[in-house]
């Protein structure tokens, strides 16, 4: 009993140990799994981070093509972001740093490198600083040598003994300094130098007699001074007014001699002053003109501040700089926007174009998005025959106010008359029609739209004739106009596809006889369903058909989903060859 119990206990404990063990094993394996996965994931993320780091480094060496002085690494622009993504992708593909940089250089040229390559014009950037530094050092060395050279020149030089004798003679005589030649000409300087040296000699003699100097010192100093004075004397002999060489002679100088020295003195520094002043003035004017003409206020964050006449990138903020300048000239009178507009309108009515342009320009300077001013500018431009400029002005007006009637009218008529863009014109005028109060004007507009539609359909026929060689004879097709019920207009989304479907009149089921697909239809739409739209080869359009249309959301003619719009010809079936098969889309499926 006991042993039995024991054996049972044993078994139980063994089982418990086994359980324990297996749970430990499970835990262990889970732990290993976890750490290994953690390890690999952290390895992976480390690798990823490393790649991203490399990508950033490469981007930092590339110029952002749409920025100024920003690297592709620093720029927040969309293109720079895309460049960074491309770099990362190429790194993942295993491309090297040089390969990636070479890829961008092959697309954008060396321009894209922030550090230009050391060749061609780029070499200048690398070399010039060193050249300038070297030139600077050479310049300093030269200057120092010159200063040192000046002192060296004072060392005794061999001079003619006759000159020394002359110096000895003249130095004893106390002469009045040449006061009238105080400065200016080199000759006057020499004379002054000479007078100074003679005075020094006399002082030296006095000191020697007073016993302040030893015999040898006196002789050395005296010799040095005499040599120096002799050199000066030599120079004086060589200078033009030889007869006025000695200070003694200055008293006997002729009036003519005096005059030449005087003019020499006055003219030289004056000439320098004038030339320097003129150069400074010219430099100032050039820099001033260049700066004001080539720098402009940024029109937007994307805009550059260089531009206009030098770079030819065109004005950035239209009306901001030129308009402002005009306004300042006009003074405080034209600060009031409504007044400006009235003034402009009045001038426009009287056909005073320059006055009208001025007024609207000033209005645009006050409010760059003023739709009326843009519209009138457009009308004036259209009058002058600048259709493209006018169209731009109308578009600007419409971007500020999409329903501005005058701009819609101007754009529509311009597209119709000048640009021959019939569908665009019809589109624009239709938009105007929607917001117009009923009246004679609206009727007139409707007439114009009808006229455009008619011309468009005629033109379509013509172009088809030209394209296929011969227009399908009417006997083989049907034509008409498709319109949308005004109540359903709000449900039309431009992304829809229109199907014009003709079923054989006899059969109620089965595939359609002919289908025509029109993407992004614009209503009212003139259509022609001819033999080219027949579904099955061999069949022909003949007899009577039922015509329906469907505006499909997904563009798949096989499915009919809820929300599709449909309509059919009210007098179905219709004989092939009929005109005016006009259909109104009036049902929601």
């Amino acid at each position, binding site marked *: 009993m006991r042993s039995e119990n024991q054996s049972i206990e044993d078994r139980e404990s063994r089982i418990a140990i086994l359980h324990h063990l297996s749970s430990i094993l499970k835990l262990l394996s889970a732990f290993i799994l976890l750490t290994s996965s953690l390890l690999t994931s952290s390895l992976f993320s480390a690798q990823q981070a490393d790649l991203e780091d490399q990508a950033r480094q490469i981007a930092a060496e590339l110029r952002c*093509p749409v920025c100024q002085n920003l690297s592709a690494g620093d720029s927040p622009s969309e293109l720079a972001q895309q460049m960074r993504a491309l770099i990362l992708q190429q790194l993942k593909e295993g491309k090297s740093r040089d390969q990636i940089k070479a890829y961008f250089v092959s697309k954008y040229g060396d321009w894209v490198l922030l550090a230009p390559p050391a060749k061609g014009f780029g070499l200048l950037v690398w070399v010039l600083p060193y050249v300038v530094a070297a030139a600077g050092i050479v310049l300093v060395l030269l200057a120092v040598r010159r200063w040192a050279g000046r002192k060296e020149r004072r060392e005794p030089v061999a001079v003619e003994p006759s000159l020394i004798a002359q110096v000895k003679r003249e130095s004893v005589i106390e002469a009045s300094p040449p006061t009238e030649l105080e400065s200016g000409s080199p000759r006057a300087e020499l004379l002054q130098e000479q007078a100074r040296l003679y005075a020094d000699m006399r002082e030296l003699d006095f000191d020697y007699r007073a016993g302040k100097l030893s015999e040898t010192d006196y002789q050395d100093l005296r010799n040095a001074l005499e040599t120096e004075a002799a050199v000066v004397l030599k120079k004086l002999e060589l200078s033009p007014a030889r007869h006025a060489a000695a200070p003694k002679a200055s008293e006997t100088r002729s009036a003519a001699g005096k005059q030449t020295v005087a003019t020499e003195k006055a003219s030289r520094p004056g000439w320098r002053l004038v030339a320097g002043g003129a150069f400074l003035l010219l430099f100032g004017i050039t820099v001033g003109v260049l700066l004001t003409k080539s720098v402009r206020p940024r029109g937007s964050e994307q*805009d*550059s501040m260089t531009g206009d006449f030098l770079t030819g990138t065109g004005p950035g903020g239209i009306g901001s700089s030129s308009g402002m300048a005009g306004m300042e000239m006009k003074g405080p009178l034209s600060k009031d926007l409504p007044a400006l507009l009235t003034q402009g309108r009045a001038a426009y009515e009287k056909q005073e174009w320059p006055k009208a342009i001025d007024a609207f320009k000033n209005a645009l300077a006050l409010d760059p998005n003023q739709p009326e001013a843009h519209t009138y500018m457009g009308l004036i431009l259209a009058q002058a025959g600048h259709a493209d400029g006018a169209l731009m002005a109308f578009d600007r007006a419409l971007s500020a106010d999409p329903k501005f009637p005058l701009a819609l009218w101007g754009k529509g008529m311009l597209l119709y008359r000048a640009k021959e863009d019939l569908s665009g014109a019809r589109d624009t005028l239709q938009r105007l029609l929607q917001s117009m109060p009923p009246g004679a004007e609206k009727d007139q507009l409707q007439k114009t739209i009808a006229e455009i539609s008619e011309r468009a359909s005629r033109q379509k026929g013509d172009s088809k004739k030209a394209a296929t060689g011969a227009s399908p004879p009417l006997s083989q097709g049907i034509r008409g106009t498709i319109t949308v019920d005004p109540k359903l207009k709000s449900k039309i989304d431009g992304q829809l596809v229109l199907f014009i479907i003709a079923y054989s009149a006899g059969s109620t089921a089965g595939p359609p006889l002919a289908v025509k697909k029109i993407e992004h239809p614009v209503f009212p739409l003139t259509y022609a369903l001819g033999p080219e739209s027949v579904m099955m080869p061999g069949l022909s359009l003949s007899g009577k058909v039922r015509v329906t249309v469907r505006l499909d959301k997904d563009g798949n003619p096989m499915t009919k989903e809820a929300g599709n719009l449909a309509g059919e010809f009210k007098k179905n079936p219709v004989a092939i060859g009929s005109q005016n098969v006009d259909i109104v889309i009036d049902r929601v499926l």
Partner: protein
Amino acid sequence: MAWRRVLITLAVILPLIGILAYGFMRDPRYINSPLIGRPATPFTVTLFDGNKLTLADLRGKAVFLNFWASWCPPCRAEARELEAAWQRFKDSDVVFLGIDIQDTEEDARAFLREFNITYPNGRDLSGKVAVDYGVWGIPETFFLDAQGRITYKHVGSLGSALIIAKLDEARRGIVSTKEGKGAYSSVR
């Protein structure tokens, strides 16, 4: 002595003024493309109608490749001219292809609708195609000959006269030496 000094001063200052003037006279953001005369990089785009178009499939035809965005005013300015040119050339051995960059699909579709553009257009979502063609300002247009070589590049809006002339050159395989320039706006 004085004359020499003036000459030396001028010799130092004039080149400096020259460099300054050169710097002012350039648009620092204008990039001369190195791609003219080189083979066009192959790509595949998904067109707005859902089909895929591969450039290599157009070998044998001259290609008019236009990069645009709905927010760019010069692109708007040229849109009508481009469509008119397409209508003129569509029955000949010329293919027009528009690539919309940095744009939303909705805006791009509205743009195509507004100008009734019928030639194939696709979107470059990653910017890879744009970078492959060194695009930095739009509109940018590349003319490719039948061998897929870039014969001409134009930055800025195009007029019909230039389109006709350059397409004619592309069809005959004549490579221009320099790119052309009109009004453009910078890529974002």
